[in-house]
């Protein structure tokens, strides 16, 4: 049933180009930044573009089936304990590589405009290329150790880029938080690898998946640890709290890392390990449930935010919840498809938001926007396409993939997740249109005094480098325009029976033979559409129509004031983590510093010192320094021994 046996050894040098081009770019931008100046942006974009083209050229080989194995393989080298590194490009990896480099290329171009004038322009692109390299390492590795290396490196790149504007304490704190939570996941994956090596003697994908059915009671812990890693990286409940804070990074970073690619690494991991999950229905239930819960929670939290990027962050979390739910229940093709569509429309939304933020000199609070439709037509139309896509309006990309995920939950026998998905889809439509209408409809409110809008100006973040409002450069507009196309139209690859997408994915994932579908897809789509229409309708009633700036401001202030505490604190997750983990850890540290260190550790050492000194004092008088006295002692000792033998008679044979 596992169609891809990945123990194959191959030689496919093009994969090395795919893999290493961004690393070369990162090294050049990192070390030759002052020389390259503006060229660093173009060089970095070119290195990602080269990778994209190389990956496209590999398409035919990546989807070719030879000896029952699909994909192109390039062996690298062997390490200890039978760990062999290699690169594998199969359809699953291909989808990720194309998104990482394709969307990544557009975001690199966009960054040239967005980061223009930043003091650390070249360093930014070095980090971005490093991220792309790390992400490619993650998805191209053919064993878990290589995957973990990429996993750690993307965490590092994410850390560096969230904290890119390191003069801001909030950015540094957010970067640290993201890194720490991600390390929780790294350690979990490491534990899973330890179990694999102990039980199977290998961490290669092929070996592990071949052994999956015979793992017995080791299978569930492996799945759990892998999923903890996936949850930390993909911001699944309860390890999601770093993602909204990660919006402290520059907006292109949010678009590339915290929307399109890195945060979907968890989806990749679950999809990659499909044979493990297929063998453990308990693990599948857990993954699906966490995904569904995250989809719902993220959507609910998205309704309560005012920062445009935090709204998008919660929306990302929610959409990844859908993907995790899809791959968790076994609807791999649907989950991966939703990753693809989401990468398009969420990158589009973030880049559109970036134009808004850039033009408004760093303003991120939607209460201080309004009426942007006339001022920023490109951002308006781009984001409208993105919003319609994420809501799942028929014909747009999100419609195909989200409905497939929701339908997949039902087909694989999880009616509760099915219901959760439908409800979350309605809430998604509500909060996306809330954001869209508050920001783009009505009249501009940015010139109103902040108090009128009910918040204190010092608490909201400011864009790193801009002082004045200015229109976006063409290089920021082009990626937005280009991303609009797949956001609208990419869904059609999932149309038809069997669709092109299904044919591609069937190379990777065995299609389940018999699924009971209690409801046809059309009924699911209808249910979702009713919810979506309701969500849009409520948003329209509350935020739509034409109101004066003052009237809208009063309404928004009232909404902010009436926000229940449970939403303002994002379901108390930060509070709970603080109380359950951070405070006990600090208390333990204080205990160690005040009690353990001085009294136990130092105390022991001090006691040893005391005893030694006392003993030394006791015996030092023997050391007279008088050689002849020593001789007397030696002779006396020998005499005693002799006396013993004479008296007791030990000398006799």
């Amino acid at each position, binding site marked *: 049933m596992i169609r891809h046996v990945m123990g194959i050894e191959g030689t496919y040098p093009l994969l090395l180009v795919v893999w290493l081009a961004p690393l070369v770019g990162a090294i050049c931008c990192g070390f030759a930044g002052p020389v390259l100046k503006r060229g660093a942006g173009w060089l970095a974009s070119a290195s990602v573009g080269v990778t994209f083209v190389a990956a496209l050229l590999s398409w035919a080989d990546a989807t070719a089936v030879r000896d029952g194995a699909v994909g192109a393989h390039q062996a690298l080298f062997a390490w200890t304990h039978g760990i062999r590194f290699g690169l594998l490009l199969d359809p699953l990896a291909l989808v990720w590589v194309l998104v990482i480099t394709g969307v990544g290329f557009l975001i690199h171009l966009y960054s040239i405009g967005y980061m223009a004038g930043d003091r650390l322009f070249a360093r930014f692109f070095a980090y971005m290329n490093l991220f792309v390299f790390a992400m490619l390492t993650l998805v191209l590795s053919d064993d878990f150790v290589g995957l973990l290396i990429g996993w750690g490196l993307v965490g590092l790149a994410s850390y560096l880029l969230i904290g890119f504007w390191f003069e801001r304490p909030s950015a540094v704190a957010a970067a640290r938080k993201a890194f720490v939570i991600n390390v929780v996941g790294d350690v979990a994956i490491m534990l899973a690898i330890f179990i694999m090596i102990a039980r199977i003697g290998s961490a290669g994908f092929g070996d592990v998946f071949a052994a999956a059915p015979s793992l017995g009671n080791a299978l569930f812990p492996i799945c759990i640890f892998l999923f903890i890693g996936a949850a930390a990286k993909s911001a699944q409940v309860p390890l999601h709290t770093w993602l909204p804070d990660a919006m402290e990074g520059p907006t292109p970073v949010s678009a590339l890392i915290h929307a399109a690619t890195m945060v979907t690494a968890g989806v990749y991991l679950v999809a990659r390990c499909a044979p493990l999950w297929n063998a453990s229905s308990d693990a599948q239930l857990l993954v699906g449930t966490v995904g569904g819960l995250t989809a719902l929670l993220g959507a609910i939290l998205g309704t309560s935010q005012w920062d445009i990027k935090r709204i998008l962050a919660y929306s990302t979390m929610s959409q990844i919840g859908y993907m995790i739910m899809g791959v968790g229940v076994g609807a791999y093709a649907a989950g991966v498809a939703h990753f693809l569509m989401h990468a398009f429309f969420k990158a589009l939304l973030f880049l559109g938001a970036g134009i808004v933020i850039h033009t408004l000199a760093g303003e991120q609070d939607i209460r201080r926007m309004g009426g942007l439709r006339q001022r920023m037509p490109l951002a308006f139309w781009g984001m409208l396409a993105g919003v319609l896509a994420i809501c799942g309006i028929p014909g747009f990309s999100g419609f195909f993939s989200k409905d497939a995920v929701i339908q997949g939950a039902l087909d694989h026998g999880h009616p509760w997740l099915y219901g959760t998905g439908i409800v979350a889809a309605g809430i998604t439509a509500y909060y996306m249109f809330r954001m869209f209408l508050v920001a783009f409809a009505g009249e501009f409110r940015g010139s109103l005094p902040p108090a009128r809008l009910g918040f204190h100006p010092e608490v909201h973040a400011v864009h790193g480098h801009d002082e004045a409002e200015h229109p976006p450069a063409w290089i920021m507009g082009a990626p937005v325009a280009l991303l609009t196309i797949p956001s609208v139209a990419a869904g059609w690859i999932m149309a038809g029976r069997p669709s092109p997408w299904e044919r591609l994915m069937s190379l990777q994932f065995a299609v389940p033979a018999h699924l009971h579908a209690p409801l046809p897809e059309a009924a699911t789509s209808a249910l979702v559409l009713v919810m979506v229409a309701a969500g849009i309708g409520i948003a329209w009633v509350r935020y739509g129509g034409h109101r004066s700036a003052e009237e809208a401001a009063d309404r928004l202030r009232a909404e902010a004031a009436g926000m229940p505490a449970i939403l303002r604190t994002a379901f108390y997750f930060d509070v709970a983590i603080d109380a359950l983990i951070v405070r006990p850890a600090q208390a333990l540290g204080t205990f160690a510093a005040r009690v353990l260190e001085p009294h136990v550790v130092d105390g022991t050492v001090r006691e040893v010192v005391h005893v030694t000194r006392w003993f030394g004092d006791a*015996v*030092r*008088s*023997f*050391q*007279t*320094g*008088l*050689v*002849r006295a020593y*001789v*007397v002692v030696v*002779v006396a000792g020998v005499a005693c021994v002799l006396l013993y033998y004479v008296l007791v008679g030990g000398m006799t044979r």
Partner: protein
Amino acid sequence: MTQYVALSAVLFFIGVVGVMLRRNPLVMLMSIELMWNAANILFVAFARTWLNDAGQVFAFLVITVAAAEAAIGLAIVVVVFRDARHVDVDEARILKG
């Protein structure tokens, strides 16, 4: 046989007393040499009596070690003399605890 053992015992006793009572390190080294050779006499005497060559071999080994010991001992004496301009062992007691 008895004479050999008696001679050896006497030599050894002279050596021990010499090391214990004399303060000149050169004399002390000579006394130690006496003790080595008291042991050698026993080795050789018993080797001849019991027709076992191991004793003879051991005597050579002892001579070798004694030579090394004497070399080190004399070197120490020279160093002490250079440092303190005297060779009185009772005065050289900086290692007193």
